[in-house]
Every structure is written in structure tokens, then in C-alpha cells.
């Protein structure tokens, strides 16, 4: 979803929450699975989802807000059409991740942690993908890529900026 698309109405969230909870008791421990499922479906956790989720699980809105904002995975605004997550942890640093990050952000025209103005790509840091012997690593739209170099970045840029 791009940022200029209009968000679906609250009833869509309520319907989705009911559907996504099906088969699972509406207890507190369903909160993270439900938030993951909502984000998978809508791309982010919209403000309007918070009261819906709170009502579905019989929690306070503050409680749900606290959980949503604690975890780095839950985004509060839609990401770009493509998502590039670059590893910044020690093992990738030992293999030149800082240089790769600089080239990638320059080539994609977006700063780390931001979405490009046209909504085409988001670049985010990630702290370890568990591919630590073959870095620098990235997840490009969920696809893992190891041994990142200028040539591989060029292919990624051609793909996401196409």
C-alpha cells in the first residue's frame, strides 16, 4: 500500500480482527499473533486498529498501544512498495556493512529508516538475520541476499526502482 491510498474504514479492521482471531481464544496472549496478522494484511498497525484490537481482546487501549510501540516490527505507517532491510549487526559490520549501507541509501535515494517520497522503497536497519558468515546481508521483500556488493546492490536497485 502506498501512503496516498486511503485507509480502509474501521469496520474493515473489526471484521479482519474477528476473522483473524477465529479458532483462537480471545485471551491476552492472542495479542501479538493478532497484531502480526493485521500487519500482514494491511501493511501496518493503523491508529484506528488499536481500539478495535483492545475491544476484541478485552484490553485497554493504552495497554494495546504500549505493546504496539514496544516492538520494533510493528510499523505505524505503511512501508514503501518495496522493503529493503539491511543488517547492521557486528558480523555484518566486520564484513563491510557500513560501506554497503552508504552505497545502498545513496543509490536508492533514501536515508536509513525512511521511505522514499514516491513511496516506492523503504530502507530499514535489521539487527542480525543469522547469516553471519556471509554478510553483508539484506532481506529484500522477504528474500534473503548474502555477500552484498556494489553489483548485487545495483541489481536490487534496478528491481525495486523499476
Amino acid at each position: 500500500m502506498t501512503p496516498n491510498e486511503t485507509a480502509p474504514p474501521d469496520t474493515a479492521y473489526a471484521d479482519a480482527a474477528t476473522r483473524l482471531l477465529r479458532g483462537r481464544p480471545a485471551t491476552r496472549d492472542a495479542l501479538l499473533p493478532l497484531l502480526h496478522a493485521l500487519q500482514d494484511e494491511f501493511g501496518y498497525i493503523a491508529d484506528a486498529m488499536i481500539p478495535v484490537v483492545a475491544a476484541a481482546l478485552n484490553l485497554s487501549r493504552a495497554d494495546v498501544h504500549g505493546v504496539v510501540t514496544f516492538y520494533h516490527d510493528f510499523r505505524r505507517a505503511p512501508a514503501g512498495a518495496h522493503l529493503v532491510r539491511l543488517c547492521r549487526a557486528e558480523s555484518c559490520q566486520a564484513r563491510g556493512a557500513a560501506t554497503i549501507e552508504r552505497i545502498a541509501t545513496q543509490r536508492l535515494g533514501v536515508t536509513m529508516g525512511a521511505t522514499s517520497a514516491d513511496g516506492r522503497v523503504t530502507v530499514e536497519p535489521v539487527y542480525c538475520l543469522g547469516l553471519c558468515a556471509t554478510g553483508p546481508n539484506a532481506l529484500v521483500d522477504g528474500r534473503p541476499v548474502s555477500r552484498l556488493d556494489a553489483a548485487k546492490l545495483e541489481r536490487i536497485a534496478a528491481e525495486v526502482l523499476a
Partner: protein
Amino acid sequence: MIRAYVSGDMASVALGADEVVAALAVRGVEVVRTGSRGLFRIEPLVEIDTPEGRIAYGPVEANEIDAVLDGTHASRIGRIEDHPFFARQQRFTFARCGVIDPLSLDDYAAHGGWQALDKARALTPQAVVDEVKASGLRGRGGAGFPTGIKWQTVLDTRSPEKFIVCNADEGDSGTFADRMLMEGDPFCLIEGMAIAAHAVGAGHGFIYIRSEYPFAIRVMQAAITRAAPRIAPFALEVRVGAGAYVCGEETALLDSIEGKRGQVRAKPPLPAIEGLFGRPTVINNVLSLAAVPFIVAEGAQAYQAVGFGRSRGTMPIQLAGNVRNGGLFEAGFGITLGELVNDIGGGTETGRPVKAVQVGGPLGAYFPPAMFDLPFDYEAFAAAGGLIGHAGITVFDDTVDMAHMARFAMEFCAHESCGKCTPCRIGAVRGMETIDRIVGGGRQPGGLEAMPQMRNAAARPRDRAAEIALLRDLCDTMKFGSLCALGGFTPYPVLSALDHFPQDFDQPATAQAAE
């Protein structure tokens, strides 16, 4: 029809294994996807079934498949078991990883699977706990607490409901053994958890996997569905993390499963007495639970016979970062750091001299080559001012700036702190600022200190030595005052960098900016 084996491990896929599989499929080759053998320099690795056994080729590019099929490929390795990287290993936990189809119950059973569970279920719970105690197995997540003692506590605690929780929130950089095991031999972990359930009387289990491991999540979920009838009445489910490093801390992990912010709980009560949903809970790392089937099937003595000092059995060691032969090396405790980095790891991939290795993830100490005679052992590393943690070894060449790495450790702690305790939440930020001032040469008092109200503020400049004293004091507070290992162990990388590489903290700020 030719049969080939190609790893479906996330690391292999990241290096192009899927493209290789597509090229094999076009040529009518039957491909079995396995886990990874564990040496990533030779990935993507293709093994072809022949009358002489599985003959390996690697690394292989998709456009080189014809040379593999006619046996002329230059990267012919032969039998993988004869390769020096594998011949030196002692694989107890990872025996099947890379060999079998991870989701084939037949493969698992044919390679010794479920024998341990059947044996355990024929024993009393106490007998199983005794076996684990006798093996000397200690928590492989890093704390090194004896697994059998933990299980005994849960067994002895009366409760209508108990849980088995597997900590698969492997967030430490430089570690990937949990991921490889879950992707390459998921039934092994399931069997270990089912044995634990029988041993303590638990009916339900959770595997908490970090969201950065999509392949492991997929494989574990599929494996649980297939193994459900085999482990019944014990039932298992996967819970997915949400990007919080601190959830690798066991009590934060329990809160996260309960649907709360992943904040650390004060101990006591121990999770073994009041854990998940307030019930007695066994919470163990993937590698601890996955070691159990071997221990039960082969006997505690077979496991205990290997090792060093009070560290018994094998450790799946992970060689990572700037290292030539990066990958998974399972060996008995006692092997030295130098053997691991130089002999087995082959030094740096860039070919430059090794300057430092970080052992045990972001909270582990940095060691210089001068300390490479350290044996891999919980006590030896603790005595040397470090920890083995989850046994990840990240290698750095001589281009690394250790002041930058020390600052990164504080920055990471600040980024990931759960916020519950002050030494970690505030100390990490102050640590970053202090390291910046050390590198910058100290600090001059500013306008604020000059104000009449600021009677206790330092009115004189602080030089680098005074800033270093301040950093050491701060690290002392964090180490002893934090609720958990995040704030408590962040001083390890910081102080080891400062102690072993003081020259790096004595640079003009421009060198930092160049990084």
C-alpha cells in the same frame, strides 16, 4: 533418475541455492532440499547420489549445473564427511542437519529419530531428569545453568499445569545454530521438547522464534503439524517475536508470549516455579533441548565423556564475520579460540591479520589474538573477563576501530533496552556519550556548569583519563545493577575493547567520522 541434495537453509538460499535447484529441475534431476551442512564458503552446495555415496560440489552457480552432472565441475569436493572442516567435528546435536529432508518423518526415523522419546516414555520422569543431570548438560543459551537442575525444580513443583518453552529468539549477531537446527532438523527439537514434557509433566509447549527467521518459522510450523500425532498428548505451537532483542531474555520472552511488552521480570520467582502464565515452566534454548535426544538415546555417559572441566559434551560453535571458513563447527569443549579462528576458520576472509574476535554475541567480550590459547569452556572465558554465550565467534580484521565497536555496544543496548531498570535504560545512553567524549579527548565545561545553581557540576575540564574512569564506573553500575544480561553484560564488549585496544580510544575524532 539422478537424485541431488541441495540445502534449503536461509543462508544457502541467500547465496543462490534456489536458482541452482531450478537449473537442476529443468534437467529432470530429482532434488531433495536438506538443511545446510554448515560450511558457507562451499554454498550453494550440490550433492549427487552415486554408488560411491553422496558426491559434493560447491560452490556451484546455476549456469554450471551441466559440469556438476557430468562430474567435471572444478569445485568437486567428494564425500562431504571427508572434508577437513567436517572430519574434525563431533556432531551430536547436528548429526542429521544437512543430511536428511527436514520435514520427512521417514528420514528422521531412519536416522535414529524418536528412539530417545520412546526410551524416555518408558522411564519414570525422575529417571529422565537424572539422565539429563548426569550428562552435565548446561544451558546453551549462554547462562550455562545445569539443565537437569532446572528440570528437577519444575518436576518438584506441584501444579495443575506446566509448560515447556523453547527460546528460539536467537538475536545475537554471529550466532545461527538455532536457526540452522530448526531449518535442518526440526523434529530433533520437537523430540527434545517432548522428552522434557514427559520429564516434568507438562502438557503444552511453545517455541518462540524471532521474526527475522521466516524460514525457521515456516519449517517449524510444518514440522509440528506432521509430528503432532507422534508427540501427543503433548502439544506444541510456534510464537513469533516482533523484533525485540531483549525478548531473548527468558522472563521477557515469557511476558512476550503472554501478549505483553517484552520487559524483564525480577527474579525470584524463578520461571521454574512461576513462569509462563504463572505456572512452573521449563525454559531452555534450542540447543539445550536439541541435545537431549542424543543424551537419552546414547546415554548420559556418552555425552558426558566429551568436554573440558565442568563444560561437558559438545558445543555447536559458530564462526562468523570476517572469517574464511565461516559456518557451524560442533566440537567438544576445550578446543582453543586460536584453533577455532586460525586452523578451522582459516583466518580472515579479507586475508588481513585478525585484530579481534567477539565471542558470545553483542554482549560478549572482544579478545585479541594474544589470548587465543583460551580453551572453549564456560569457566575459562568467565575468568578471562568474557563469556561463551551462545558460542558465536565474530572475527574482525585490522581495519576495525574498537572504540567504534565499544560505542556500538552501548548504542545497541540503548536501542534494545526494555526500559524497566535504570542502569540499562539510562546507562547505555550515558555510555555512548562518555565514549564519544573519550574519543574526542575529554570535555570542557559548558555554559550550564557555569550557572550559579549548578553547585555540584564539574567546573574544571575533564581529560580523557577522567572520562575513562567515569566509563569504568558506569560499567560497574550497569554490570551489578541491571535486572538482566542486556544491561549487565554490555560492559563486557565495552571494557574488553578498552582494556585490550586502548590505542583505538586515543584517536582524533576525524578517524571516527571516516568510519
